[in-house]
């Protein structure tokens, strides 16, 4: 069986789903951040895969490249927030931060 684009996008959607479920179900901010990384990686996979089937240019790969850069920035800021929250609440549970309720 030859590989088709469907294989890659199907895999990517499974990975994205796992990341999303992790983000939704887990309450540990660290794990939630990792879940976000999973989702970003899934998106990168679709970009690279679709680019592979449209090889006339490198748009998909360039986008994936920028995504990686943005993911790095996001991880840095996100983890800084985690540290800040931990300092205040002595906890890394996302539910403990709900002051923006109203």
């Amino acid at each position, binding site marked *: 069986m030859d590989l088709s684009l469907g294989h890659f996008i199907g895999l990517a959607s499974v990975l994205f789903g796992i990341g999303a479920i992790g983000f939704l179900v887990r309450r540990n901010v660290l794990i939630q951040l990792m879940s976000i990384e999973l989702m970003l990686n899934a998106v990168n996979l679709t970009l690279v895969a679709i680019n592979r089937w449209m090889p006339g240019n490198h748009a998909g790969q360039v986008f994936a490249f920028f995504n990686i850069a943005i993911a790095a920035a996001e991880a840095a800021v996100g983890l800084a927030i985690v540290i800040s929250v931990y300092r205040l609440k002595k906890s890394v549970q996302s539910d403990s931060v709900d002051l923006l309720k*109203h």
Partner: protein
Amino acid sequence: MDFAFGWDFGRALMWIVLLPLLGALVNGISGRYASRGLVRAIAIGSVGLSFALALACFAKLVSLSGHAAADGEVEATTKLVNVVYDWFSVRVGDAVIPVRVALLMDHLSAVMTLVITGIGLLIHLYASSYMEEDPSYARFFTYLNLFTASMLILVLASNMPLMFVGWEGVGLCSYLLIGFWWENPTYAAAGKKAFIVNRIGDFGVLLGMFLLVATTASFEFAEINANASSLAIPLKLDQTHTIAFLTTGTAACLFLFLGCAGKSAQLPLYVWLPDAMAGPTPVSALIHAATMVTAGVYLVVRLSGVFLMSPGAMAFIALVGATTALFAASIALVQNQMKKILAYSTVSQLGFMFAGVGVGAFAGGFFHVFTHAFFKACLFLGAGSVMHAVHAHGDADLRELGGMKKFMPVTRWTFLLSCFAIAGFPLTSGFFSKDDILLGAAFIGTGPWADYPRWVGWVVFAMLAVAAFMTAFYMFRLYFLAFEGEFRGGQGHADHAHGHDDHGHAEPHESPWAMTLPLVVLAAGAGFVGFLGLPHWLGLPNVWEHWLEPSIARLPLAEGAHVSAAIGATAMGVGTLVGLGGIGLAYVWYVKEDGSTPARIAASLPRLQALLMDKWRVDELYALVLIRPMAWLARFAANFDKLFIDTLLTKATSSLALAAGWLVTRVQTGAVSMYGAVMVVGLAGIVWWFVVPHPGLQHVVRGTQVKLQAASGLGYEYRFDTNADGEFETPWSAERAVDGNYQPSDFRGGAIVLTTLRPGQRDREIVLHGGEPHAFDAADLGPDWVRGPAADGAAAAAGGTAPVDDTVPAIRWTVPVRDLFLPFAPRGGLAHSATLEEAESLAERIASGESTVEIARARATNDEERTRLGAMAGEDGVDGHVKLADGTDVHFERGARVAVAETARGVHVVALDSGEAILRPNGARVRVRGAEVTEPETRLRPGEVAQVGNALVRVAAVVSATVEVRNAFGYTVDDTVDVVVQPERPATEARADAPGGAR
């Protein structure tokens, strides 16, 4: 427009108006931050410049009319005109009437402009000192400048709408200035009273203006006056009704006079002016004595051509004016407040002016406007000077004055001179102008104008003579009580002085030069401007009348009518006598006798005295008749608002919103997981949208051409089956639109399109096809289905014997479409609301192979309207056959689907799915192809139109189209639409189908 006079004078007109307006703007915006000196400089400077420009324009006008007199071209060259810009235009009938912002200075408005800017300048100067203590100094001058600008617009406007702008502007400024000290609720109420009473008058001005423009087709004063003869027609109520005894001119004059009565304080709308004395005294002098209140007289003189068309209205004006003069003078006799007396005196003098213009002495009445401006302004300013001296705030009580002459000599002498002028002492200005009015009344009494009632002249003459006597008396009563005798400064003085510690004078003192200078100038005017209007009958030159001649319409006097010396002498003699008599009586009673006689008279007539003191209790009458019912209505409305709107509607809706908001905030837990969950729902929606294709097939019909268009989407591909026969005409492609062209073989159902042809009513199309229930009523189809020409046709067809049933309230199609459209059920069942037995019997007959079916009598949803309908169709070799209740038959093709319609007149239309239709007039008048249908049955081809009454029945057909859409992932979705196509009418019959042209 002709600018032959040079652009500079046209421009100057504009700047006359603009300068005070700019002054108001600057002071209004930045005055509160500026020093008093700067505010004063701007306010006085702008009016002063405006006065200088007005003088220049006046000089130009004088030189022009000098030339004109030499050339004999009076009409064209006695005015300066400046069209500033085109404002808007109005369509009256077929004519488009432009409204321009155009300024016009002719001999009439030149005089008014000089009075406004000249006296305005003096009063600005006076006020700059008088208002020195007031914290709202800049606000006062803003209003005063704005008033000057508005008043200038009023008099310089060359057409009625622009005049109305000024008219409203002065009303607004009057309101603002009366309520200038708004902290005092009484003053604020006085302002509101003035404003509201003026509104009533403005209503009249508007109505009068509309009448004039509707009749003379112009807004320009000059053209209205020139076309005034067209006003002599009975007043039209609408296209057909007129009022025989009232001409348009009279109605317009009476409406305009209502406005003048409001603005110029005539009976019965005078009530606001006495209260208007709540404003600062310079305001009383400028607005409520010298300028604004004379706007009504100005308007009458300006439209003299119109008023001459209606002697009745003029007589009415004269009588109202004379009554007002007498009435107000009687009130002024007993008042004790200085400004109150002057206010009633103003009302009375305005009555003189209206009496003057009412008896046709336009120049005389307007002369009184001119002289009155001087002496009344001087009197008010003198009163203000007195109040300033004794620190009276609001008004000064005569009982607390007296002997002022030794404290303030300048004020005393100017006041005395003005009193002589208003009393009509010989050779003062008031003497000449009042004499002109009396002379006019006496002259008209001799009957030189055939249409004018003579008796009015003498009645007005008598009333004015009495009023003049009273005037002389109360003015000198005022003078003697205030300036002669001993100072009686008492309680009030001490109270008021309290608020002015910085002055600290125990004794009254003369006012500063800025206040006395205007007094002197005005008093000089009051003394001497009368010589402009020397009596003509003595052979003396009347400069005034000669000057105004080009601007005022000539009275239609009888041949040879002229003012005889006897009449002139009578008027002058009576005028002199009553004036001197009034002064003498006041002298005897208040100087010789120290006021004991009038006190005794008042004591012997307590009720009359009380009535006069209460100003004839007119305000109380208004309160009873107008204000209380209004207040009751207002309370009712307020309670309704409170109980129904606020409680029921507002609370209900707001609590609904609150509840919804509460519900939504339940989601706002602040927990990230909750927000994530909500995001997932949105994400699922987006995913669904992108993964599942959305055909969204739409169509545009043009005859049998149908443009089909599917929705666009990412990576969509389409293929179309335009006639829904299961075979796709187009291959898969990204093209999302396709044109379908239909032949009769593609038709899948019949349809009837009903269109009303009522003029003015939006066309309504009702399409009957494929099984969707729809109930029709008269509103759907229009009353023509019930009461069209078809009714006559029905009667004619019945041989004229059958009564026409015009009482049918609505078309009888109150049945749902499923009764009209009867698809044949394959097994022979009958799919409509016939009774069960009928259906069974029909089914049997079809099953047994009978080719003819009896009528099925369907029961309408509405019992009393049994609809005679039936439709059957055959299948599998059985031809459809329907027999309608009237015994006629309809045949169908095999497998046909039909739509059947019946109108109130009994017209049947049966549409077949071949696109053809069968039409049965059943006696009603139906037109097809331009000709009336005579046969009992006609076949209509696709696209043909039958006219029933004023409604159109168009035969149409139903086609179906399908599109399949697949997206990049290979998902495929299809969508089918039914389209009603209306085949073009056969070309050869296009012209004959005339009714269709109305669409």
